């Protein structure tokens, strides 16, 4: 059997087994779920072993004599000391190295990229100078750089920050500002949720597109045959569930 055809049958079967959960939880879904986890972990282990151990450690040391690589290997091996209770303390050196290096690399870069650059973008001028004596206020909502959008962002950032400032009671004028912050937060959550729905529907579209493609005769119509099989199996499982009284022990 051609590998493409075999792949089509496997992909179709697993898709339909996973979709069977929409009817109700069942052993077919569990089978596909466990296969997914097993295959993912197995693939990751094999690729990691091949790339890291074979190509980045063993080959360079043996073929090119890069003995300096033994230093990171030794630090990495210290991690395994966690499995030996008496020597578990040694793993702390490896963790200290990772945490120290990770924090050292990440903190300055993150501050620069996400805090300073974003503050710089938030405090844009609310009115633009178009000449030596003329000032303009652009109202175009569709232009992210317009003055109106700069004002909206300023309002949003200010009110949301105030909403999370708990040292002052949110009453009177403060309540209005905090409420404005909540509105901005709700719009943000709504946009996020809308994009999430779009993303999940895209995944469904992807699977259905494949199922339609694999219903073709050139693949042996796996979608049709496996759909019949899954429906029959679900029917059989439902009948067996009704026939067997629940175990009360």
């Amino acid at each position, binding site marked *: 059997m051609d590998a493409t055809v075999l792949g089509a049958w496997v992909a179709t079967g697993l898709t339909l087994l996973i979709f069977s959960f929409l009817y109700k939880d069942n052993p077919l879904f569990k089978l596909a779920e466990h296969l997914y986890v097993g295959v993912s972990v197995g693939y990751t282990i094999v690729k990691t072993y091949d790339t890291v151990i074979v190509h980045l450690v063993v080959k360079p040391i043996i073929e090119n004599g890069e003995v300096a690589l033994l230093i990171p290997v030794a630090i990495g091996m210290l991690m395994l000391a966690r499995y030996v209770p008496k020597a578990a303390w040694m793993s702390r050196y490896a963790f200290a190295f990772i945490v120290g290096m990770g924090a050292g690399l990440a903190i300055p870069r993150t501050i620069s990229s996400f805090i300073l650059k974003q503050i710089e973008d938030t405090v844009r001028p609310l009115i633009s100078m178009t000449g030596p004596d003329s000032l303009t206020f652009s109202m175009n909502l569709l232009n992210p750089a317009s003055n109106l959008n700069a004002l909206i962002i300023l309002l949003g950032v200010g009110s949301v920050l105030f909403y999370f400032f708990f040292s002052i009671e949110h009453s009177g004028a403060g309540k209005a500002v905090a409420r404005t912050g909540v509105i901005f937060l709700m719009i943000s959550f709504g946009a996020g949720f809308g994009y*999430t*729905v779009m993303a999940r529907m895209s995944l469904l*579209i992807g699977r259905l597109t494949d199922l339609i493609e694999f219903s073709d005769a050139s693949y042996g119509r796996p979608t049709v045959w496996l759909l019949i099989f899954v429906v029959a199996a679900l029917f059989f499982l439902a009948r067996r569930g009704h026939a067997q009284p629940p175990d009360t022990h």
Partner: protein
Amino acid sequence: MTFAERMLKIDRRIIFLVIGLCTLLPLLYPVGLPIKISSEVRGVYDHIESLPEHSVFLLSIDFDPASKPELYPQAIALLRHAFKKNLRVITMTLWVSGTGMADQLVTQVAKEMGKEYGQDYAFLGWSPGGPAVIINMGQDLSSAFPSDYSGRSTKDLPVLDGVRNLKDVTYMVSLGAGKPGVEEWYVFGKDKYKFEMGGGCTGVMAPGLYPLLRSGQINGLIGGLRGAAEYESLIDQKGKAVAGMDAQSATHVAIIVLVIMCNVFYFSLRHASRSQGHIG
């Protein structure tokens, strides 16, 4: 039980069926709804379009098969565009679970566009470390990837002639489904080594990346299947993303209708119970 009560307690499997049909029918019988090109997708397209021939284009395929429906069409469209412009295409991944898929993707598009491995493009594969790989590439590319995915020394690949580190990359796009992805490429790559960069991401991630776009930290963003469809329209090679747009629109309409109906039934029930309370 009133109609509104029955509708609010409807079996969720009926809703699944409605959504399924709204997705399936437009895929079987497409109507070809128009696709409007957004400025963020055009940003990536225009930049690639402006690059001279043989510029170095780095595409980081930072996703695995779980995000394939959204990001695979984006990658195909970007590679087709880059190959059409005769750019030197370097591809890689920061996701170990996406290595095989990325190799298949690059090989498939290169074959379709008649490109030669090593001469016109290369797939470097995966290297462990996430952000550390980006930093390493910024210092010395051949140190981060001593060999490509097929085991050939990267120093011997003609496509990498003159490319010592990330400073020699003309344009870079990360197609990310999470971490490491677009943000890591910006933080540890572009911000430090100063190359121009665009991004592509799943729909879930898009709202979180818009601040980077607005501040000019990335010059374009392809968001989800919709972004892929826009890019396919721009390069005039309509594929799976454009085909899925009718279904996407239909499901969105179905969900909006369901949300409105639920609210109508909920408020009518609340109104009825309050009226009964007044009478009682």
